[in-house]
Structures are given as structure tokens and as C-alpha cells.
């Protein structure tokens, strides 16, 4: 029976034998806390010699956990690198079996060493491939979405009304407080910031025109769209992404149901319907808040309303609101696309959500720019 000693700190004895091999004698307890006492000594002793064969006498080892296994594996790897081997002798049967199970079949195998980090060319290539794949995804999805939207327009009775209503409530009604609050604050800040320089020139009376034109034509559609991208676009991506992870989308497909038709239509329609309504609320609150500054200068409500109505036309209002129809569609569509393309893994839904918001905001700005150019040439 081996004489074991598992209650003490481990001890190590190292001898270089005359016939060219290294003898390492280990005793005591080899665990996570104690292995650090003997590991460096064993490796250092091996490094100082040029031997190819190591014999580890472990007859005094009473207990060995994963850390001890790591020491044995490291000695085996070092010996194998010199074309030799490390033998472990004297282990208790249970520990012998444990060491045997954990023995690497080839300690010098190439796949055991970490892959070198990808170089610049690889990284650039991957990034380009990802962008091209994204573009392909967007083009494909745009085609699919166009087809199902045309189907929805020609088959309105097949749209799932209750679900559409519920999503409209989430996208529209639930977003109303934040849309109104931000509209009022932006309108107020704009009036306040323009009042100071305009007062020097005695031009405070044009504040209603500045606030109303800026809010109606540009700011309200943008603010509303960005809120929708942050609130609803991300929610669509997370919701559909989770359905992808939990196989609900696979289930839809095996029922013969088109996930784009089933999931994207109510969300895109809700986005298209709610974005203009929210924008109108944002405009009303933003323009109204501008009056608080004018009131401070002694202007009446009647003056403010007249100045606003004389500055903007129905074309301005329709131009601003029409823009949000497209922005609402883009935000909802990108949220659905990112959700449907969710990969597997614990971070996949988070990644999809982030990408939906980032892509949504970028596309909002691009679409707004295109509208600006088109309106300029149309003279709107």
C-alpha cells in the first residue's frame, strides 16, 4: 500500500539520474491552493536539464484535483516537446484512473495551441463580407416585405387585427408621453436659445416662425423617428429575436406560415400608422411650448397663433408628416429584419437589438437627407 500524506502542503524532490532522466518525487496534497508551491520548481528543474524522460513518483500524493492534473499534463507536454515522455508512477488506483481520464492524447497537437489573432487583411475582408451580407439581407428583405405588404393591402381582412391593435398601442399610445415631453422640451429650448440673439436685433417676433418651421418640417419627424427606433425598433428586434432563439419562428415555418407575413406585417403597419400620429403630437407640443418664451416677452396667444399660421402651410405639415410614414416603415422593417436574422447564442438577441437601433438611426438620417433633397427640387 502506498504511503500517502494528504493533510500536508505538497513537497517535491528532484533528482537527475545518471542515465539521463529526471526523477520528480511529489507528495502531499495537490490542489488549487497548494500546487503553486511545487509547479514552478518542477518546471524550472525540467528546464535546466536537457533530459527527454521524466519519471514522476507520486506515491506520496494523497489527493489531487484538476490543478494537480494540470501539473502532470504540463510535464507530459514539455517532455513530448523534446520527443520524450513523462511517466507517473505510484499513484493510488483512484487517482491513477483520474489522471488517465485527463491524459491528453497528443500534448503537442496543433489544435491545442491558441489560434493566432487574425491580421489586418483578414479583419478588413471579414468586415467587407459582413457589410455585403448585410446589404444582401436588406435587399432580400425589402423584396419580401414589399410582396407581403402588397398582399396585405389586397387582403386587408387577413391581417391579424387584434395583434395589429396591440402593437399599435405599444408603439403609439405607450410612446406618447415621451414623444410629447421631448417635443415640448425641444420647442421650448429652441425658442429660448433663439430669443437671446434675436432680441439684440429686435426680431423676437420671428420666433414663432423659426420654431414652427423647424419643428414641423424637420425636428418633430426626426425626434419621433429616433424615439421609435430606440423604443419600438429595438423591441421588435428583441421580440422576434427571442422567437428565433426559442424556435417559435421554426414552428411558424413548419406550419407553412411565412414569418415575414406573420410577424413583420402587423409591426410595419403599426410603425407606418403610428409614426405620423406621434409626429403630430410632437409638433403640437413643440410649437405650443415655444409660446412660453413669447409670453415672457409680452406677446399674446392670438399673435403667436397668427404668426405660426402665417409662417407654415399645409404643404409644410403634409411634407413633414409624409416623411414619417417612410421613417416609420424603415424603423419597423429594420427591427423585424434584425430580429428574423438573429443568430444562436446568449448574446444574439442583444446584438440584434443594438444593430436594429444603430441601423435604424442611420437609415433615418439617410432617408431624411433624401427627403430634404427631393423637397428642395420640388420647391416644398
Amino acid at each position, binding site marked *: 500500500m502506498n504511503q500517502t500524506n494528504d493533510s500536508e502542503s505538497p513537497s517535491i524532490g528532484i533528482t537527475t539520474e545518471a542515465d539521463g532522466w529526471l526523477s520528480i518525487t511529489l507528495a502531499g496534497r495537490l490542489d488549487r491552493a497548494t500546487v503553486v508551491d511545487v509547479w514552478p520548481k518542477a518546471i524550472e528543474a525540467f528546464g535546466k536539464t536537457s533530459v527527454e524522460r521524466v519519471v514522476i513518483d507520486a506515491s506520496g500524493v494523497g489527493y489531487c484535483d484538476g490543478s494537480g492534473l494540470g501539473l502532470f499534463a504540463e510535464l507530459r507536454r514539455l517532455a513530448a516537446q523534446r520527443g520524450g515522455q513523462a511517466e507517473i508512477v505510484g499513484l493510488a488506483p483512484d487517482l491513477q484512473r483520474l489522471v488517465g481520464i485527463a491524459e491528453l492524447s497528443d500534448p503537442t497537437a496543433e489544435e491545442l495551441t491558441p489560434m493566432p489573432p487574425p491580421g489586418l487583411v483578414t479583419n478588413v475582408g471579414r468586415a467587407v463580407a459582413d457589410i455585403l451580407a448585410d446589404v444582401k439581407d436588406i435587399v432580400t428583405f425589402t423584396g419580401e416585405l414589399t410582396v407581403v405588404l402588397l398582399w396585405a393591402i389586397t387582403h386587408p381582412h387577413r391581417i391579424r387585427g387584434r395583434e395589429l391593435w396591440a402593437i399599435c398601442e405599444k408603439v403609439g399610445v405607450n410612446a406618447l408621453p415621451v414623444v410629447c415631453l421631448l417635443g415640448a422640451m425641444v420647442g421650448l429650448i429652441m425658442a429660448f436659445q433663439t430669443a437671446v440673439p434675436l432680441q439684440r436685433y429686435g426680431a423676437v417676433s420671428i420666433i414663432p416662425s423659426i420654431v414652427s418651421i423647424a419643428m414641423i418640417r424637420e425636428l418633430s419627424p426626426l425626434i419621433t423617428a429616433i424615439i421609435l427606433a430606440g423604443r419600438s425598433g429595438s423591441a421588435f428586434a428583441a421580440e422576434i429575436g427571442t422567437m428565433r432563439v426559442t424556435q417559435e419562428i*421554426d414552428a411558424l415555418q413548419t406550419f407553412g406560415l411565412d414569418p415575414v407575413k406573420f410577424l413583420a406585417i402587423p409591426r410595419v403597419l403599426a410603425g407606418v400608422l403610428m409614426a405620423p400620429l406621434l409626429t403630430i403630437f410632437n409638433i403640437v407640443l413643440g410649437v405650443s411650448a415655444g409660446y412660453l418664451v413669447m409670453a415672457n416677452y409680452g406677446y399674446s396667444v392670438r399673435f403667436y397663433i397668427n404668426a405660426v399660421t402665417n409662417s407654415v402651410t399645409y404643404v409644410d405639415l403634409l411634407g413633414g408628416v409624409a416623411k414619417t410614414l417612410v421613417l416609420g416603415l424603415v424603423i419597423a422593417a429594420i427591427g423585424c429584419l434584425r430580429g428574423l436574422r438573429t443568430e444562436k447564442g446568449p448574446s444574439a438577441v442583444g446584438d440584434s437589438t443594438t444593430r436594429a437601433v444603430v441601423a435604424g438611426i442611420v437609415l433615418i438620417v439617410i432617408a431624411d437627407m433624401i427627403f430634404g433633397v427631393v423637397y428642395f427640387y420640388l420647391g416644398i
Partner: protein
Amino acid sequence: MTETMKQTESKPIICVKDFKAAYGGRTVLHDVNFDVQRGEILVIAGGSGCGKSTMLFHMIGLYRPAGGHILIDGDDINAARGRVLNRIRRKFGVAYQSGALFGSLTVLENVRLPMEEFTDLTNDQMDMIALSKLKLVDLEGSAQKLPSELSGGMQKRAALARAVSLDPQIVFLDEPSAGLDPITSAGLDQLIIDLSRMLKTTFVIVTHELPSIFAIADRVVVLDAAVKTIVAVGDPADLRDTSPNPWVRAFFNREAPGAPQETPERSRGR
């Protein structure tokens, strides 16, 4: 019974021929050949990572194979597209490992959904049929609950009710007993046997739960990750006792390779 009907009944309902599956150029399964007879309960078994679920997902047309064919009632599901693929898919129902019930719909609505999309039944008719299906799985009392309000076992039973919603000829089940306690698992096994006998439905079940395999399987197809193909087909008890393949015998006898011959209750003191 006419000669044509007899021939139809004797033909296998699923034929897998020279099937090969690969992910990104890495072969996962190859040379897979087997048939499933009408009304049979066939279990696809094997160790973790052997390609059981991969096989199932190819059989239901979610993935395209790298080679070979899978015929569902004579139609090649992997060659079909669009409406043809959807027509084939209506011949079967699928219950996923996670249940995959639609979280925004009640249990009743989940079971109704395939009927809403593919039948001309009235709302009342759909409700009654869906409730009957829920009664079959002993869930009629949970009809108005959301899936999140159900236990794991109840979700799996609701998924089974949804899978048989359109009374398909074939039902595919992915790990129906996984994560369930032994009593719930046994109840689900009995339910599968009952549905198979009562509705004459063909079941293809992916599992590695040995008690379930022995309880429900008419035949087992055993896949092995080491050789990436089928290593045995047959009655589970026969395979356990007489398979010429030692890995198959070890699998059905629940033996770890190279384990010491000791009792499981041995002392584990350090």
C-alpha cells in the same frame, strides 16, 4: 379495401435515401438510409452531438441536405419550394424541444392558429376542435392561459396539442421528455402511445431518454457521432441485448466505456 389503398398503406410514409448533412463544409451525417412505416412510432436516438436534431430539422424541411433525398409521403421535401413545400408541411406537425409556443397567444389560440390559417372553419368550430385537442393532452383547464403561465411539462403537452391541430399524418417530436421529471415524462410517453393508437398517427421522435425509448418505440434508428451515420436500426430491447455493435449495447444498457465495475452507491469520501 381496394388494391390501390392496400399499396398506399404498405408504402413507407417517410423514406430517407443516401442522406448527407453538412454545416459549412463539415459533414455531420452521411449515408443515412431508413424508412418510416405508417402508424409507426420511430425513435431517432444516439449520443449528444450525433446529429439527431439535425436529422429531424432536415426531415421537416428547415435545412437543406448536402446530399440525398427525404420523401414525405412520396414528395421530396428538400426539393420543394414555396406552396409545394407548404403543402408537404401540412402533412405533419412538429413539437419542438422548447415547446416553441407563441408567447403572445393563449394556449387555445396557439392550438387554433394552424386552423385559422389553413381551414375554412368558423371561430366556434375552431374553438371546439382546439379544446378537444387540449382535452386529449389534459390541458383544457389551461386553455386561456399564456404559455409563460405553464410548467415545462404543460408547455410540451400544449406543443403536442398544437402539433396535432390539423390532424396530420405524421408528428415529429424533438426531445419531448427532456428536462421533465420521471412521472411527467411517463405521462407524456403514454400520451404519445395513446395518440398513435387512437389517431393512427405516425410519430418520429428524437430523444436519448432510455426509459422513453423502451416505453414508446416500435423501432429505433441509432446514430453515432464517431462514424456520423446509422449504426443500428431495430427494436430497442433487441438492440440492447443482441446488437453486434458494442457501442449500441453500451448505449442501451447505459454503460460508460471503461468504467470501473463498482456499485453506484460506493463511498465517495476523499
